[in-house]
């Protein structure tokens, strides 16, 4: 928690909720998976987004169907919030195990708000402020006892609203939006629980009321999860068809697309398996639409043969991989960045693929649009590598200017002239979808066999060389049009941290902190991983060390997946790895320690 008023520290004489101005707070809710802490946390995040605050969340859910510990962390700040925070300022513990498992994340001087009906904290530990409230009992009381303790999450939301002096009118409106669609009694129960929490005389046990500084930013923000941003980005990019099979943490993207695409005249199909799904998506592509399939690591493995066909047949296709811990079933609800090799190299034969990775929830939206553009322009499969932490992270970001970013693609059925070639050697393939009249009377076949310019199978040595080069050279053409990413920090110095994917947040926060401490640290974030943008070597040359933090293993030779690729590409011994494989995101401290040691 960052205080902006040094004359008004949080410790002091008892008073009724003395206001303290803060810029930033990390609130961690810890309970069980059925307690609804995700929805309480999400409401907080939505409120922050509507109040033009920056917000970022982090959650874990057990991979079991019901039960098991679950947590939701919300960081709300005035100004830019890069990461969900290493430590909590405020821990809400529903159960004894929630307290025991999470007290280590509470910063010294932080507030433990606990359900005194279920939790007995060790109050001898003087590092924390203890606020015990019989949350279960009060919730049951407020709701008349029939709802049992369901509603504790909303009771706590009321408490938090009081403590942080949140905009109650806006929060109640959010509750109405969330629960209003269901029957009246559910909404009334939620409002009762909220009001009971808000009315609780928390001033008897906590002396400070926190007040966020008003945001400078007056722009309109939208608040959503990474998977939502990805799904809507695909729609904005012109994707109207898709097919997939459910797998965590990809599933919510397909759920959204299944429900949303019909609104745009499109269709998303749940298939019998991963292979059927990629095949159907390719059927949509072949028909002249822009299509998507997606999955998480193991499912992508199943799709691999068909993706090889997409490369050979030169078919546009977007493949989303919301990465989780692997290999195999691995850690289904944890995060890892260990599918980069799979995305770039995971095909049989020489099969160059475009690979992109979003850095933030906001970037999930824009990277999907970029993927759509590239898939169409270069008629090629394009991977989007998201991950489990981005999938469920809630962030508020500036509302996109939809008018300027949205694209529409329709099958181009313009009759093709005499001599039309589906696979010209001197141009990028643009297929004539079925339904197109061929004025020369010769109809094209798309194929996974090596072929000549017309799509006829051939074993010609000359043609295999030429066609292999054709499929590779379009990625080289793409590389030339990708702008080199901007360096965050300074253009030269001791170390440059090069990141990809969801490590963007902690890396940038680490650089910000290190530079405030006088360290000569900068960061560069890659959204295009294959092909890489041209000109990185000129940026690297200005730094003593290049450090690549990745949530994957250091491998047999001591380097993570991106680090290995960069070392192979630039032959630069300055490139070093910082790896993490515990299924959790990097925190800022780990990056600072890893880079500055």
């Amino acid at each position: 928690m960052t205080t902006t008023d040094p004359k008004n520290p949080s410790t002091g004489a008892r008073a009724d909720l003395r206001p303290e101005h803060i810029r930033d707070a990390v609130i961690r809710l810890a309970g069980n998976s059925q307690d609804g802490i995700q929805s309480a946390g999400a409401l907080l995040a939505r409120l922050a987004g509507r109040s033009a605050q920056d917000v970022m969340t982090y959650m874990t859910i057990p991979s079991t169907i019901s039960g098991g510990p679950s947590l939701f962390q919300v960081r709300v700040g005035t100004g830019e919030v890069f990461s969900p925070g290493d430590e909590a300022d405020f821990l809400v513990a529903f159960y004894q195990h929630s307290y025991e498992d999470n007290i280590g994340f509470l910063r010294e001087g932080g507030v433990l708000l606990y359900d005194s009906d279920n939790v007995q904290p060790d109050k001898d530990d003087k590092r924390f402020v203890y606020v015990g409230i019989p949350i279960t009992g009060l919730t049951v009381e407020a709701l008349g006892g029939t709802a049992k303790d369901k509603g504790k999450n909303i009771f706590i939301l009321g408490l938090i609203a009081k403590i942080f002096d949140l905009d109650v009118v806006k929060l109640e409106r959010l509750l109405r939006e969330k629960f209003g669609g269901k029957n009246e009694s559910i909404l009334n129960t939620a409002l009762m629980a909220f009001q009971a929490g808000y009315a609780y005389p928390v001033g008897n046990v906590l002396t400070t009321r926190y007040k966020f500084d008003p945001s400078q930013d007056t722009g309109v923000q939208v608040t959503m999860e990474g998977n939502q941003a990805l799904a809507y980005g695909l729609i904005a990019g012109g994707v109207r068809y898709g097919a997939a099979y459910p797998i965590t943490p990809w599933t919510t993207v397909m759920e959204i697309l299944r429900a949303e695409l019909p609104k745009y005249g499109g269709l998303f199909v749940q298939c019998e398996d991963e292979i059927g799904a990629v095949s159907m998506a390719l059927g949509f592509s072949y028909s002249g639409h822009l299509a998507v399939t997606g999955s998480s690591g193991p499912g992508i493995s199943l799709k691999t043969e068909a993706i090889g066909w997409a490369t050979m047949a030169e078919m546009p296709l977007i493949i989303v991989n919301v990465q989780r811990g692997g290999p195999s079933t691995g850690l289904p609800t944890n995060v890892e960045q260990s599918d980069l090799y799979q995305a770039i190299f995971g095909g049989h034969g020489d099969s160059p693929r475009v690979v992109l990775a979003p850095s933030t929830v906001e970037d999930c939206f824009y990277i999907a649009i970029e993927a759509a553009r590239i898939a169409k322009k270069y008629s090629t499969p394009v991977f989007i590598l998201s991950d489990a932490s981005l999938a469920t992270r809630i962030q508020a970001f500036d509302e996109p200017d939809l008018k300027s970013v949205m694209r529409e693609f329709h099958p181009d059925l313009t009759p093709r002239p005499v001599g039309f070639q589906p696979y010209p050697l001197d141009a990028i393939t643009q297929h004539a979808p079925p339904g197109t009249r061929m004025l020369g009377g010769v109809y094209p076949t798309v194929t996974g066999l090596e072929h000549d310019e017309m799509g006829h199978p051939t074993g010609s040595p000359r043609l295999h060389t030429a066609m292999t080069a054709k499929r590779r050279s379009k990625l080289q053409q793409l590389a030339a049009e990708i702008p080199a990413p901007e360096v965050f920090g300074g253009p030269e110095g001791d170390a440059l941290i090069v990141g990809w994917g969801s490590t963007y947040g902690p890396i940038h926060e680490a650089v910000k902190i290190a530079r405030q401490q006088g360290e000569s640290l900068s960061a560069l974030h890659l959204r295009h991983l294959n092909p890489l943008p041209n000109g990185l070597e000129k940026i690297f040359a200005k730094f003593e060390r290049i450090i690549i933090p990745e949530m994957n293993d250091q491998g047999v030779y001591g380097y993570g997946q991106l680090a290995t690729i960069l070392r192979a590409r630039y032959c630069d011994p300055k490139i070093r790895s910082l790896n993490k494989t515990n299924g959790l995101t990097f925190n800022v401290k780990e990056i600072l320690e890893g880079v500055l040691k």
Partner: protein
Amino acid sequence: MSATTPTAGPSPEKLTKKELTADHPTWCPGCGDFAVLASFYKMLERRQLPHESIVTLAGIGCSSRFPYFVNSHGGHFIHGRAVPLASGVSLSRPDLHVFVFSGDGDAFSIGGNHLEHGARKNINLTCVIMDNSVYGLTKKQTSPTSPIGFKSKTDPGGAVDQPVNPIKKLVSAGATFVARSHASQVNHMIAMMERALDHQGFSVVEILSECVEFFPGAFDSGNPRKGGEFPLIEEKKGDGSPGDDARHDTADEVAAYRLADLPAPGRFGVFYESGRPTKNALESQWIASTRAKLGGAGAHEVLQKTFDRMK
């Protein structure tokens, strides 16, 4: 399917075998598939579909080379997965006529699951399966329809696994048109393909098509020219005519099973037919009703509304 669906304009030329012929088939001389191809040309000549609306798709195998030999829009996909590929085409382009060509290995072994789910979803397309009861392209291994005792390079002592019964598999999966023919019977093949084309839904014609190289004589029992017989299914007319009771009711699933269980050569003709709604129709209705609720809003308006709710 609605907003994004164009319609192909009519093609001016009359469609004859000449326009429909592409590469010369790479099949071995005497292969049953030649007759299937010839029947397909004839069926198309008869029906005069717009040339550009014909789509031929296939997986891997001898029979799956089909799309190269037909001058139409077409695709040669990966092994066993042509049905979902074709489903994507069918579901997103109602203006097209989608044909899948497959073999016993492609359809019943590696692609078995896709065939079942294409049938269950009742995707509007026609699937022609050339069954030769052997893997020919890879030179004589056991196929899922090889009879017990068939000697192959993977079963030198004779096949031991019970073969798939294609008709039973298809009927139980939910295919809404299931017919069986023999590559020696061109007129019958044309008739079956034509009925499959007219059928709204997942229509399959299984054609016994001899591999002269690796399983010669496999279907002689169904070929009158080789001393066999070609017993046809007599379909119920429903006109109360004498003997109609004994005829086959193509809407009767159990009767289809009984016919499918008869020993070689079995029966030829239509085993099963159902008017169950297609996925194409059901999804189109859903899309239309969803669009109607939006009052014709454009893509930008629809997405803007969604974003407004997330502010």
